[in-house]
């Protein structure tokens, strides 16, 4: 077997991964990108239609946009920490707010188009630089090519290798040729995004199955804030071709639909009678999910969004003047072709998994607790805390991408090449080949669906201790009965996407278990996590983070005090989860 050697190996090629590679290469490190897709054609960054946050003062000074000079990094930090419900690591946030401007400016220097500046909900000042995910990934791709950074595409990493506790490399499967691959590297940077695909409804791309999180966990990396997956309300659940499309949510700001349950009741009345459908997105997600879980949803498990209270002309007029859904086209979808006539039929919609607030715990150097292992972008935990501000995910990619690249390169420079443990490599090979060698058993699609149903029902936008316990017992069944029997039906090794899915389900199940256990431990509701059995925010007992780490074969959960530097936490008492507007 060929062994590819490098100084810095980056897993992931988009907003975060490409930025890591650019920095490491510029600092003289031999750098290699390995990505599951094709650069510029995969990952979450390209799906963003997008505001990129920088301090409003920086927007004015660095970008010549109508930013507000009253904004300061500290004020930006205040908004992040209050939105994150004080779960954020404030040392990390302080770096984020200060470096956002310069890092986003580099993207513009590399060719990213800027179309303006907006103030999104949760921000006191206009901080959202308007661009598109496409424009951003093209700028990064251009820079990656200009620097001559080597890329291995369509290769899924399946295991991280260690040498006496420090990182030694990775192994994986090349999808294009169906071969097992070994990479030796002094430093490894994970930029593989969140695990949104553990849920059946998501705005995230196919490959965001939490592989990086599960792999890091398996070698002892600490995870933090894993109980806070974030949901976007009002994403399409039907028809199947448009599952997870966020149009009803996006359009709610310009065309005010009514959210109805199957009895035709405008259920937001019960939740936020003043703001109704304009409530915050966490409350909107909870309200929609309660209707669905309590049997008041539609035939496809969503709630209804109706525009019948508006005149037909108004609905048509909206699709005329709104550039992003002109002539009822949204993205590349033609709504009419998909059977939508919004004057007669509304959307059936539900909350969709949108962003991963928690993840691998990092320090100020974007380093994990495993020497040589770095993490960046959506996969990290600690930056956003319990909830993320609009527009901050892409900023996170470049601020922490550049940091991870810098410190991984510095680490690689001063370290000797690690030894490859052939036993670990052979174990990795066996794990990859096992579903291919089994002749019968459980299909990946079947287990994937089982995991997703469980995640949505018990560990979704609305949770309850009894439900989480039920989920955990079913997860245990899946781990012992189904996972060891996952098999690939077709034995063709080249470009076998069922094989890829067979490898992903293990990560999905692992991440779901971590989310469930963390959620069960946190006996309160906060940020993106709502528990029906503990519906208040408990600042007396729960101003702390939950850390998850593998010890031996056991999953260990522990709490640590939140990291506070500049923003004083609220008084230590119980408070309502939200106050109706």
């Amino acid at each position, binding site marked *: 077997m060929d062994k590819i050697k490098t100084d810095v190996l980056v897993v992931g090629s988009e907003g975060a991964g490409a930025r890591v590679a650019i920095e490491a290469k510029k600092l003289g490190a031999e750098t290699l990108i390995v990505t599951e*897709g*094709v*650069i*510029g*054609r*995969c*990952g979450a960054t*390209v*799906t963003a239609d997008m505001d990129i946050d920088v301090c409003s003062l920086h927007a004015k000074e660095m970008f010549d946009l109508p930013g507000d000079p009253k904004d300061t990094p500290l004020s930006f930090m205040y908004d992040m920490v209050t939105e994150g419900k004080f779960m954020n690591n404030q040392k990390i946030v302080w770096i984020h707010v200060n470096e956002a401007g310069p890092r986003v400016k580099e993207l513009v220097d590399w060719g990213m188009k800027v179309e303006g500046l907006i103030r999104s909900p949760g921000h006191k000042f206009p901080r959202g630089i308007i661009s598109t*995910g*496409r424009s951003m990934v093209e700028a990064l791709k251009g820079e990656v*090519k200009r620097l001559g950074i*080597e*890329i291995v*595409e369509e290769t899924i990493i399946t295991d991280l290798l260690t040498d006496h506790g420090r990182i030694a490399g990775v192994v994986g499967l090349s999808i*294009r040729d169906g071969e097992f691959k070994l990479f030796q590297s002094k430093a490894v940077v994970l930029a593989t995004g969140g695990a949104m695909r553990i849920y059946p409804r998501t*705005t995230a*791309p*196919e*490959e965001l199955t939490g592989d990086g999180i599960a792999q890091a966990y398996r070698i002892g990396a600490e995870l933090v804030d894993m109980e806070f997956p974030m949901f976007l309300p009002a994403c399409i659940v*039907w*028809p*199947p*071709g*448009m599952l*997870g*499309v966020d149009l009803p949510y996006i359009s709610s700001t310009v065309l005010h639909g009514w959210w109805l349950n199957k009895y035709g009741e405008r259920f937001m009345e019960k939740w936020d009678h003043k703001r109704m459908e304009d409530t915050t997105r966490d409350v909107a997600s909870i309200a929609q999910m309660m209707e669905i879980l309590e049997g008041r949803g539609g035939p496809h498990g969503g709630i209804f969004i109706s525009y019948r209270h508006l005149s037909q002309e108004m609905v048509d007029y909206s699709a005329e003047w709104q550039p992003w859904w002109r002539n009822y086209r949204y*993205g*590349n*979808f*033609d709504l009419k*072709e*998909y*059977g939508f006539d919004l004057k007669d039929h509304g959307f059936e919609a539900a909350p969709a998994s949108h962003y991963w607030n928690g993840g691998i715990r990092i320090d100020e150097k974007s380093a994990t607790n495993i020497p040589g292992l770095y993490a960046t972008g959506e996969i990290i935990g600690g930056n956003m805390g319990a909830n993320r501000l609009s527009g901050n995910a892409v900023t996170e990619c470049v601020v922490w991408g550049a940091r991870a690249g810098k410190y991984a390169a510095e680490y690689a420079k001063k370290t000797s090449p690690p030894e490859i443990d052939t036993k670990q490599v052979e174990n990795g090979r066996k794990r990859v080949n096992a579903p291919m060698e089994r002749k019968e058993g459980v*299909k990946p*699609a079947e287990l994937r669906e089982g995991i997703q149903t469980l995640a949505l029902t018990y560990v979704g936008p609305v949770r309850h201790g009894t439900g989480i316990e039920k989920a955990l017992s079913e997860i245990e069944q899946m781990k012992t009965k189904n996972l060891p029997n996952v098999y*690939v*039906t*077709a034995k*063709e090794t*080249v*470009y*076998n*996407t*069922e094989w890829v899915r067979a490898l992903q389900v293990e990560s999905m199940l692992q991440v779901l278990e971590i989310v469930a256990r963390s959620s069960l431990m946190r006996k309160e509701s906060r940020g993106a996590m709502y528990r029906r059995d503990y519906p208040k925010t408990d600042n007396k007992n729960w101003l702390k983070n939950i850390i998850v780490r593998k010890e031996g074969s056991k999953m260990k959960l522990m709490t640590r005090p939140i990291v506070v530097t500049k923003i004083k936490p609220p008084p230590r008492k119980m408070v309502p989860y939200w106050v109706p507007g």
Partner: protein
Amino acid sequence: MGMTATVKIKVCRFNPNKDKEPHYEIYEVPYVKGMSARNALDYIRDNIDGSLAYYISCRIGKCLGCVANINGKNGLLCTTPLQPDMTLEPIKNRQIIKDLATIPDKSSL
């Protein structure tokens, strides 16, 4: 899902390691209005032939990775509505990895 109707679609199959030239397979898949071509391919891969190869990432028309030749025209598998008697082929002038999966022109490889 209460699906009763079906459609037949024709998919170009080609494995350069085994086949001398491409051939076509016809698949019958359950149909409801509002399915995409991608939904049909997922159904085939998960229920009929797990070896069917095609590239999907964002599945909402943004990554542009799933471009294919659909009824003789280039389009995206994820946003093109499924229709009866549809023909799906790899995009022309690209190296075929397998079936509908191709190496993009701008790829680093």
